[in-house]
């Protein structure tokens, strides 16, 4: 079977992503002062970068391999563990499933640098465990058995893997948590039960098959989070991998090194997606047509209230701490001021994202069929957009030497927001068909205003709060990685990420200072997500259910 390049490009997301990221890395290099020849050298892997000598690819190759190994281990471990835990929770009942989901959210939105620093502190000070990678030198002479050495070496790469698996575990729990409960209530599953299929087979054969798409979505969406986490974890543990190289490049603001780093990342993502594509081809996913998907986030009101109370209590504690304990005043005031500023930025950013998202959705809705098809193509890579955004941010800051402000960030953020909202519209395709059958002209502004907009409003609300939490956590990452070479003019004065970076230098002196800002970011994200779901539910109840077509829209 002969396939043209165009077909391959159209079918392979991995290849498209690799090409896009490579172009971005070349742009980074050229805007950072590199020549055309440097670009060619980068592509063939002989560009000398930093102090690492001739041939970027030679040393980057091993760094990429080391990183890819721990990332693979972390993703595999995290996904398996989250799947297993979600299953166990679903066996225990709906409450435990939702609890698992809530725990997942907490884990997924915990600033990874804080977790990493606290683990470092606990390992060294509490458990007396060495972290070999943090010392780039063999200091003291001693003799050990090969068994001992093997264990020591294994600990060297297991610890970063373990840390990297935490956000994956969180995302996995969030994804699978409630999914299994709703799956078990599906008519298909009930039918299987009635036909005498064993519980084991129902769970591991059918549930897994029915969750495959969700898992695919999750695996595709993981690279940005895992890769940023890798940069942070490797830097903190001084693990000699691709992420540590990138962290150094980023902090130095060195364009050639960043380009090489991004180029190395392109290979990693391409392999990641390539493997996924291969798996999909080898083991095709079962059809989802028979499944009635309930998109509502049911019974979240309790969690929403709980999360809101938690957020409010956290904020109140931070705000009033210094008034209650004036002896230690200063630190909490600083944290509360930072949180206030960051929350305002996040609200503003999320608002911009939502507006941009609605505009984009409207544009796509009203445009011809070809555009809709393009949108469909876009949706296939939409979850990887943050990766490109990181590249564009690097390009903007390092290559063009411009600060990263709120407006720019909101523009960048609008792309995934548009994607997310478009997906909501996509879910209402059925309703469009239904409306067409009534002879209403499809894709008109009044139709959008009267029918589609009320229908997507819950999605918009949810999007706003989702963007808010995403903004909060990514703002934290950016401001952490931006030190001391400031990535953002907006974040440079004081930011939670910056504060965590400063605290990382003195973690052994007062690790406790890490907790308030980190926990507050997590709590705020947690609260925003549940609040968004609750409000989204509230909006939804007033609307006709267009999905099954049993009710007339007018």
């Amino acid at each position, binding site marked *: 079977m002969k396939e043209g390049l165009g077909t391959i490009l159209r079918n392979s997301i991995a290849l498209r992503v690799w090409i896009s990221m490579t172009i971005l890395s070349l742009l980074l290099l050229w805007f950072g002062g590199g020549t055309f020849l440097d670009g060619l050298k980068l592509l063939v892997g002989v560009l000398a970068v930093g102090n690492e000598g001739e041939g970027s690819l030679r040393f980057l190759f091993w760094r990429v391999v080391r990183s890819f190994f721990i990332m693979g281990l972390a993703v595999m471990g995290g996904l*398996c563990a989250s799947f297993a835990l979600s299953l166990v929770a679903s066996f225990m009942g709906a409450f435990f499933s939702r609890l698992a989901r809530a725990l997942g959210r907490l884990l997924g939105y915990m600033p990874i640098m804080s977790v990493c620093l606290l683990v470092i502190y606990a390992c060294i000070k509490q458990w007396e*465990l060495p972290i070999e990678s943090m010392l780039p030198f063999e200091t003291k002479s001693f003799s050990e058995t090969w068994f001992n050495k093997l*264990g020591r070496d294994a600990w060297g790469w297991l610890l970063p893997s373990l840390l990297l698996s935490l956000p994956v575990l969180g995302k996995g729990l969030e994804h699978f948590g409630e999914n299994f409960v709703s799956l078990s209530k599906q008519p298909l599953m009930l039918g299987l039960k009635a036909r005498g299929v064993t519980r084991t087979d129902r769970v591991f054969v059918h549930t897994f098959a029915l969750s495959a798409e969700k898992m695919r979505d999750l695996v595709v969406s993981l690279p940005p989070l895992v890769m940023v986490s890798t940069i942070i974890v490797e830097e903190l543990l001084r693990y000699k991998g691709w992420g540590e190289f990138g962290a150094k490049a980023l902090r130095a603001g060195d364009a050639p090194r960043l380009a090489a780093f991004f180029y190395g990342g392109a290979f990693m993502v391409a392999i990641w997606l390539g493997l996924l594509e291969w798996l999909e081809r080898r083991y095709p996913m079962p059809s989802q047509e028979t499944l009635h998907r309930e998109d509502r986030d049911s019974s979240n009101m309790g969690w929403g209230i709980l999360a809101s109370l938690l957020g409010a209590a956290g904020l109140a504690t931070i705000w009033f701490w210094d008034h209650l304990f004036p002896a230690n005043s200063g630190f909490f005031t600083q944290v509360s001021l930072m949180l206030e500023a960051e929350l305002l930025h996040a609200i503003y950013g999320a608002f911009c994202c939502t507006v941009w998202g609605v505009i984009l959705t409207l544009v796509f809705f009203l445009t011809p069929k070809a555009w809709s098809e393009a949108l469909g193509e876009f949706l296939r890579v939409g979850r990887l957009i943050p990766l490109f955004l990181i590249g564009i941010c690097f390009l903007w800051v390092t290559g063009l030497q411009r600060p990263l402000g709120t407006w720019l960030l909101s523009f960048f953020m609008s792309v995934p927001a548009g994607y997310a909202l478009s997906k909501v519209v996509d879910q209402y395709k059925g309703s469009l068909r239904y409306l067409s059958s009534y002879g209403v002209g499809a894709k008109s502004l009044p139709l959008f205003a009267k029918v589609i907009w009320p229908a997507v409003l819950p999605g918009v609300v949810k999007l706003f709060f989702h963007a808010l939490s995403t903004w909060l956590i990514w703002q934290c990452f950016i401001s952490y990685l931006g030190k001391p070479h400031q990535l953002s003019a907006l974040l440079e004065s004081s930011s939670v990420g910056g504060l965590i970076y400063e605290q990382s230098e003195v973690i052994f002196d007062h690790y406790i200072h890490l907790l308030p800002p980190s926990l507050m970011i997590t709590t705020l994200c947690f609260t925003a997500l549940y609040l968004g779901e609750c409000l989204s539910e509230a909006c939804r109840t007033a609307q006709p259910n267009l999905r099954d077509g049993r009710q007339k829209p007018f």
Partner: protein
Amino acid sequence: MLKGLRWIIFGVPLALALLTIWSAKQAKNSRIARHDDFVIASSVSEAVTLNPFNAVGEVDLELRKILHESLIRSDAKAGLVSGIIEKWQWQQTSTVWFANSDIAKKAEAKIRGLTPELWEKFSLIEIEVKDNELAMEFGQAGSLGPSLLYQHIAEFGPLPLEQWRVEVASEAKHHHEFFIQNALEKSQVKRARILSDQEYLLDVSGETVRLMEELQLYYQNHPQLKARIRVASKQAMLHKPLFQALLREDAKFQDGQPITVEDVESTLRFVYSKPWLAEKADAWRLVDSIQKVSDKHFKVYFYDVYGPSLQLFVDLPIIPKTWIDQFSASLDSGVNVFRQNPPRGAGKAYIEHVGERSISVALADEKIQWPKRLQLLFGQNSRAIRTGYEMDEIDAFWPSSSSIEYISKEDEVKLSKQSSLNRLLILWNTRRTPLDKVDFRRAMGMAVNREFLIKEMLQGQGRVHDGIFYPGSWLSSNPESEAFNLEAARKILYSLGWVRNEEGYLVKNQEVLSFRLLTVEGNPERSKLAKLLEAQWKELGVKVILEEMPLNELFNNRLQQRNFDAALIGVNFETQWDQLALWHSSQSVRGLNFTSLISPEVDAKLESLRQEFDPKIIQNLARDLEKELMEHHPFLALFCAESTLVIRNNLKGTISEHATRLMGGDR
């Protein structure tokens, strides 16, 4: 296939968890097994030169202390103590010339006829007549003996000694030698000293008029040399101080080779041919010759009576002659052979291995049970250093300022503080009104809260030291710092007639009290400090006008021209006791005495210090000078940075006294 998934889904996390537990246990076991070395880590990225004569950083300084022994060591408490040199003595030969040998012999007879008490009083050891020359050897250098003795032989009409300075365009040595070979009156030239390629000095006695005519004639025949001859000074005798020293019998390098006079001479010539010890260059220029008496005994002759000549031997490490012969040329070509092939020193340790960012130092003292080896790591990430310390991998390090408070609370830790050589101060122009009044300058100092400045500028890692000498050095009187006292400062100013106006400024004769404070531009830290000072003086009621300018302009146009009120500058603490160039009134108009301080008391002490050879008296004089100087408040010392070395005092139950001492913990 999907059925097998259950094993993967549950098996992978379980296997990873078990593997993690096992590996963590193994890693913990390996951590407990480590011992032996004492590891010192530094985050300073500057290259460690290992050059003991030109230490550039703290690591270099610390290494010098353990790798090398000095000829004479300076000790904060005991003053100058013997190092490689076991004993040393200053002597002086003073020579006079007479009209003929008979008169010289008569003078000799007169001296020999003096009572033994007088010989002792003059510290006279021996006299010798050679033709018309009478040489007298004294047991002390720089004493009054020669002058007193001169009075006894004055009746024989000793010929005066003149010092001529000859300046030529080039090849001074060549022309001098050529002239001396052929000059008729060459016997009148008692000593010649080549200062540079364009300059030399002649000590002449006798028929100096004819010699001068001959010399002028010679240079008239060489107009291209543009020679300039002038009489620089006249004196009664030709003095030639002599330093003689005995090396310790057991003095040897770490490879077991004994330290000989050849090593000492080679080191002296090697070191002072380089620009490393510029502060001692004046003393080295006075060295006439070095003479070996035996393997362990040597003499150094000097051209002139200059007490600080002793500085040449103080805190000077000695390295083997063989190393100098082998590597001196490579060093000249720009290769740092100190790192590539470190010389063996005479200290307690020797270098075992030099890596790119590490140095392994083995301790030679067999009495020391632990540690047997020191490892120095530098240019390391500060977080990694701290982690290493927490993991017991690192035993000593320089923590960040914010961590010191926390670390000092730990039981097994000893802190060693070291002041930097550089400090910041404000020079007052003592000729400018109202800064010409000592009380006024004192009040200005009292109004500055220096502890606050240290907190603001150095996060508390600094100290106030009012003296001129390095704090804690053998020369320092360690003067007490004047405490911040705004009220007392106000009272002083009030007594001087300054009263506050409605705006809060001090006024006198309707003039607001103000002065200009100069500082260098392009240095944000200095600007910040200047603004803090401005704010503090404003609190007192003084209006300070800040002026920033390039460094060249500050020194050349303002300080040199004495065109300033006050200047904020950074200068090094003094480690040498000759301070004449900086504070003598003769330097107040054109020299380096920028403050234009004129004080006969200070001048007297400065002059005495130049003449004194006895370390005990030098120490007392230097301390007196410091106190006297501080009473005049010619400058306001602000602060100097302090680095703190954290040393693990008790590693796994073993008190590492040796390591602590080796690392300067007792400083």
